[in-house]
């Protein structure tokens, strides 16, 4: 049957030949029987019947009605789309951009927020969430806990298996040497049972035992598949061999399977050796737990709420009475994406608006076509075409467009996703791999189909309401442009402009935020400064003398190079996250004021000079502040302001890192990114800093801070940055050839990396805003252009009666401007509501910033004016005589 359906064209031609042969035979016989040739032919025809009718009957027998009409509609749709290339191209671009951008953002949202984590039974993977309510406020903490809490949970929890990972990772990687090869790798310190919690067993060997995972346990390591392949060339005998990690030898006990990664990727795992005094003294551990099968997650929450709160209660009975603590579990995926959730959902919202505008635009474009085609449709209906047939035809046309646009959109989406990956290098750590997948494809096609129905239905219904007589009669005397359909187009233009305002205001606020953050006074002179970081989380650098020897000798070598103005080492560069450490007052000590925290950094002489931090009072650090000399510190102005009301505190004493030290100087403030201390939550804060001489820091202090942070060399030089970088490398290698430099960057690169997330959001939302503006302009242009086309005759008459071109243009343009103005007002209202939701993304500018709102309004109005003016210009070229004769 289907074969005959698709071949029926050829079959029909064959049938015609066959019937002709029949008639010829008949005619032959009749001629033989004595008929004249012409009479014979007539008689044969009479007896045969009408061949055309018979062929049609057979043709119908061979067709499938639905496919038949669908095929015809699709062919017709292609013909119509080819006839209006301008419309088709604009519509396709609109669709491709709308669907493509949405697909790309959805891919990211899907990969990060929706897609189950790549582990067995991912819904059983949880972490801890604690809520502490005090009169000072409510604090929610996810994942983090201290050693004592972990041990309590580990030893008492019956509903789940738990494991922890130690803190780390704000500094550079660690140094690993194996098989005579050195590599800078990322290390994760995890507890016994860590891999079991994730449900993935080592592919070779085993994971850590409880015996290994305790203070003083043997040094063992599990390698990632990638590192094993790279260092051991996939040698199965690697298990049992040793590697040198941070200058210490570790025995390899296992290799993880290919592709295994948690939210924080690592090349090598070692036992965390949980403790309660050093790292475990603070909330430095991240908890991972797997709820046992058949145990409801709520029971795990309830158990957590029994174990944890008593441990966290303040000892002071009065404070305890005012504090309430609850604990529970939260899905790991949710906890890992807490920070990303808001910006991603906001982006998704922005993209949704663009898609909405794209749909509105298409609906407008299609309605305009319907208006232009109303005569054709009226003619078809007058000739007997059913209302349903017309609606079906228009729907097929939209569907053809939507599918073509959807396919183009997938291409655009792929490109946007690649761009996103580039742009987001410093912003999101995509721990899990990400690519366009089936689910994203389905969603994108769903959008295409939904869009098709959305914008296909409105014009279809309008078209089917065409008053056949009215339209045909009107076309003769088309003096006044009419049509109820124009109303829906007007509403759409208003909606488009309003949505555009919302996006552009958001973009404007983000741009203003970025400009604000960029223009903030850094507090130092970042030009001509090169920085270099390397990891000192190394067994060979546990001794204070060894660390200081490295600093002093490398700096001495660097200072010998030409062009060097100043050079120093610090634990924390400006525009990065600084170390938080407790300290105590000496003068005016108040036992109630228990927890004083500040950003503490060790520095060498030369650091303050290299950054040109202004000295406000007292003196900077110098070479005489050595081990054995009187312990000193330098603080910044913000420290003095916050803790001493800005008093001159030079000569006073504070206790830092277990030693009482004299404040010998006050320097200006250098900005940093937020470490959770102070600031207003803005991405760039003015920290309160204590600068401690590196030469007066203890080995224990170095060991502790170097697990989380890496020291940075800071060099001010008039030499080209590349030469400075080379000088640093040679100087470090000259002191310790086994110590690789992890990263060399100019200070301005460090500054710009600090604002990577803001730049990312700003670029993306601005890009979307520009797309929205373009789409709105296309919409307005289309509306005015079709109005001009429809009113050609009327305008011609006006010109003939003596109206000036200016009057006629004004008459055509005015509706466009009016609609845009209405849209701007509505959009501004909506933007006010939206900008309130954006509060956490904007700094240094009010959510109701009048400059942004006025600027966006002005921009949209001028674009609308130009978009209206271009088609209106055509009026001037009208020849009244011609237009009057045209119809």
């Amino acid at each position, binding site marked *: *049957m289907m074969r*005959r359906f698709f071949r029926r064209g050829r079959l029909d031609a*064959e*049938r015609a*030949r*066959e*019937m002709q*042969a*029949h008639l*010829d*035979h*008949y005619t*032959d*016989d009749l001629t033989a029987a004595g008929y004249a040739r012409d009479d014979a032919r007539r008689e044969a025809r009479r*007896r*045969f*019947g*009408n*061949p055309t*009718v*018979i062929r049609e*009957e*057979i043709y119908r*027998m*061979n067709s499938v009605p639905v496919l038949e009409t669908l095929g015809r509609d699709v062919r017709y749709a292609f013909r119509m789309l080819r006839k209006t290339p301008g419309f088709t191209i604009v519509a396709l671009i609109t669709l491709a951009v709308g669907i493509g951008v949405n697909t790309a953002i959805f891919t990211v949202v899907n990969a990060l927020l929706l897609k189950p984590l790549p582990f067995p039974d991912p819904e059983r993977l949880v972490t801890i969430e604690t809520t502490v309510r005090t009169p000072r406020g409510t604090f929610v903490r996810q994942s983090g806990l201290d050693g004592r809490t972990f041990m309590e949970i580990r030893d008492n929890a019956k509903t789940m298996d738990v494991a922890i990972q130690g803190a780390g990772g704000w500094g550079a990687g660690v140094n690993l040497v194996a098989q005579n090869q050195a590599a800078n790798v990322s290390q994760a310190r995890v507890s016994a049972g860590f891999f079991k919690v994730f449900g993935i067993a080592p592919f070779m060997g085993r994971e850590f035992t409880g015996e290994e995972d305790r203070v003083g346990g043997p040094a063992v390591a599990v390698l990632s598949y990638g590192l094993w392949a790279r260092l051991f060339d996939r040698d199965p005998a690697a298990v049992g061999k040793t590697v040198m990690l941070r200058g210490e030898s570790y025995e390899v006990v296992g290799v993880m399977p290919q592709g295994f990664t948690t939210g924080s990727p690592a090349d090598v795992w070692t036992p965390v050796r949980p403790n309660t005094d050093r790292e475990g003294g603070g909330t430095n551990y991240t908890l991972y737990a797997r709820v046992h099968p058949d145990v409801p997650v709520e029971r795990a929450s309830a158990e957590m709420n029994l174990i944890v709160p008593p441990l966290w209660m303040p000892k002071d009975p009065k404070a305890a009475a005012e504090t309430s603590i609850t604990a529970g579990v939260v899905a790991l995926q949710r906890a890992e994406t807490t920070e990303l959730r808001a910006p991603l959902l906001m982006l998704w919202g922005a993209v949704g608006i663009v898609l909405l505008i794209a749909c509105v635009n298409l609906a407008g474009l299609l309605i305009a076509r319907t208006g232009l085609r109303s005569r054709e449709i009226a003619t078809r209906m007058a000739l007997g075409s059913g209302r349903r047939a017309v609606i079906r035809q228009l729907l097929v046309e939209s569907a053809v467009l939507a599918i073509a646009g959807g396919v183009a959109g997938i291409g655009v989406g792929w490109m946007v996703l690649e761009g996103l990956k580039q742009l987001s290098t410093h912003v999101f750590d995509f721990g899990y791999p990400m690519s366009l997948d089936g689910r994203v494809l389905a969603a994108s096609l769903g959008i295409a189909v939904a869009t098709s129905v959305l914008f296909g239905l409105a014009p279809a219904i309008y078209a089917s309401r065409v008053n056949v007589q009215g339209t045909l009669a009107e076309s003769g005397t088309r003096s006044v442009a009419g049509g109820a359909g124009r109303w829906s187009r007007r509403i759409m233009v208003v909606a488009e402009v309003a949505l555009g305002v919302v996006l552009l205001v958001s973009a404007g606020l983000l741009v203003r935020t970025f400009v604000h953050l960029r223009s903030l006074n850094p507090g130092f002179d970042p030009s001509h400064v090169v920085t270099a970081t390397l990891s000192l989380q190394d067994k060979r650098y546990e001794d204070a003398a060894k660390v200081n020897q490295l600093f002093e000798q490398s700096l001495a070598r660097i200072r010998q190079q030409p062009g060097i103005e100043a050079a120093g080492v610090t634990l924390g560069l400006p525009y990065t996250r600084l170390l938080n450490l407790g300290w105590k007052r000496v003068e005016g000590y108040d036992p109630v004021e228990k927890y004083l925290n500040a950003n503490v950094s060790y520095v060498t002489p030369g650091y303050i000079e290299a950054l040109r931090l202004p000295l406000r009072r007292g003196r900077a650090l110098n070479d005489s502040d050595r081990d054995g000399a009187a312990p000193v510190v330098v603080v910044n102005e913000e420290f003095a302001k916050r803790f001493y009301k800005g008093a001159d505190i030079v000569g006073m004493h504070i206790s830092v890192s277990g030693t009482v030290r004299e404040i010998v100087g006050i320097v200006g403030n250098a900005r940093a990114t937020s470490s959770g201390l102070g600031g207003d939550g803005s991405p760039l804060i003015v920290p309160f800093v204590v600068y401690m001489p590196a030469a007066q820091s203890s080995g224990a202090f170095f060991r502790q801070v170097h697990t989380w942070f890496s020291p940075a060399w800071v060099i001010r030089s008039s030499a080209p940055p590349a030469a400075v970088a080379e000088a640093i490398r040679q100087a470090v290698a000259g002191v310790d050839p086994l110590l690789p430099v992890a990263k060399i960057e100019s200070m301005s690169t460090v500054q710009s990396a600090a604002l990577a997330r803001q730049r990312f959001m700003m670029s993306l939302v601005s890009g979307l805003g520009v797309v929205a503006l373009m789409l709105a302009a296309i919409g307005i242009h289309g509306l005015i252009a079709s109005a001009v086309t429809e009113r050609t005759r009327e305008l011609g008459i006006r010109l003939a009666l003596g109206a000036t071109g200016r009057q006629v243009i004004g008459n055509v343009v005015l509706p466009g401007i009016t609609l845009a103005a209405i849209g701007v007002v509505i959009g501004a209202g909506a933007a006010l509501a939206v900008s309130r939701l954006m509060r956490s993304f904007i700094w240094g500018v009010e959510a109701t910033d009048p400059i942004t709102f006025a600027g966006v309004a002005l921009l949209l109005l001028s674009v609308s004016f130009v978009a209206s003016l271009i088609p209106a210009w055509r009026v001037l070229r009208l020849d009244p005589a011609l237009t009057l004769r045209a119809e």
Partner: protein
Amino acid sequence: MTLKRTAARPGADLLQGTLDMLVLQTLRLGAAHGYTIARLIEQRSDAFLQVEQGSLYPALNRLEDRGWVDSYWATSENNRRARYYRLTPKGRRQLQAETEQWDQLVRAIGLVMRPVE
């Protein structure tokens, strides 16, 4: 098959089903083109069945679609190109079945139409 349908909806279908059967019966003698088939039906019924010759073709299309006949082009006795039809084995079985049903029908009608005694 045809009979069942005929029994359910007498009238046009009866004639149509009958025409199919007549065509199949004609082709039992050997392959033939459309004109020959029409002539043979006329002649064998002593010119009683005067089919509109054109209506033969939808029937042939249907029979071929059902796989009861197949066709090929060949040169006719008049030295013209013509499309010849022939019975397939499936068509032969179908004809067998239809003939039996037809005989039963005729016998049954004959019994009913006996002169009343």
